[in-house]
């Protein structure tokens, strides 16, 4: 049974993905390339293990930073954003 198609926003751009997809998968489908910059080196990083182990896919999801995008299932209207550098405490 094919999953429902929904729309999420990756760095502001609308992308239609399967309702079963993870936020990391949505980011990859959106073709944004890297999904965060390392807080130490500033290096570009992207999802790697896709199963919650490597913490490479940390993104800002619905305004909450440092979420493991591969472990978050998309919801209609979800905002998925690249994380730049270290999180700022606010």
């Amino acid at each position, binding site marked *: 049974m094919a999953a429902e198609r929904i729309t999420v926003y990756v760095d502001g751009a609308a992308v239609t993905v399967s309702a079963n997809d993870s936020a990391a998968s949505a980011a990859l489908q959106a073709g944004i390339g890297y999904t965060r910059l390392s*807080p*130490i080196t500033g290096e570009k990083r992207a999802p790697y293990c896709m199963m919650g182990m490597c913490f490479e896919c*940390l993104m800002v999801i619905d305004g909450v930073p440092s979420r493991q995008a591969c472990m978050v299932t998309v919801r209609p209207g979800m905002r998925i954003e690249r994380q730049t*550098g270290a*999180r700022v*405490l606010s």
Partner: protein
Amino acid sequence: MTQTADTVVIGGGVVGSAIAYGLAKRGARVTILDEGDDAIRASRVNFGLVWLHGKGDGMPAYGFWTRRSTELWPRFADELKAETGIDTHYVKSGGLSYCLGETEYARETETLQRMREQAERDPYETRMVDRGDLMRMMPGVTFGAEVLGASYGPHDGHVSPLNLLHALHTALMRLGVDYRPGSSVLEVTPAATAGGGFEVRTANETFSTPKVVLAAGHGIMPLMRPLGFEVEILAERGQIMVTERMAPMGLLPANGVRQTAEGTLLIGTTNEDAGYDVSTTPQAGASMVRRAIRVIPALAHVRVVRTWAGLRTLTKDESPIYEESARYPGAFLATCHSGVTLAAVHATDLADAIYNGKLGADIEPFHSQRFLDTKHGR
């Protein structure tokens, strides 16, 4: 085959390494016998404060000794950096102990006053700061409503304990110290003739030495009696949490929370009697986090990455013990729970004293003899 050394240091944690570093710099040919990665190693689990604050209540000598170490630390850190290229991340930032509510504030004020009066001159120079002061000192931080102020110690600071141990070990290699991991000491035997030195035996080797230093934390216990030492060392469990990396917050280190140079926050700690059990518990985690959030409410949104537990090497009065065996001169014992804070003074004054074979007036008060005087017992 029996091997020889000028001094055998038993224990390669931050205490043994600092002493060995000082001895080697003075020209001694030193062998360190260390356990393996499964050792109970306080050096690899601690919070990383270089801390004068609160040390020596009831024993001003410990306050002065710690103050001396805080004075030596900047140069010690520079020296290690120059010799090894490893930055210990030491910063003499000043340090805080937060007070939540009036009772804590009053109690802390009283403690500072009491400790100041115990000493002939004040080694601490601590003072109480109020909420307004804290906001001026750390303009980027929003404090919880219960934070009335803190005690502030100008000589306090923090360091990466892992980098410190790494730097010490690297420096030891450069100085030609014979460092042997995986070499648990089974036995130290004084020679049959007085002044004949000691035989130190591991599973595979025997070392003959005129001087031996027991600096192995909890590992001292099974080795000390044949050398004429009789000290009591307690294990106290402390749990620490580490968060994700954050942008620098301009936070001064405090005894419950500090931001490392890498950006992570360390949140601690507990004082538990759990024998040699190094498990972590959700209860301890919850209580540490609860207090940290009462101090800085925005921490509620920060992700905790890991919690770990370690064992402090405590004496009954929490002050160090340094002594030379009366029965077997040449055998020294050094134990403390503040191996990081005291590393600088261990590498200089204590190493000097051991090198010269005489623990002088500044070190004498730390003899375990003090426990026979009931005033110091707990």
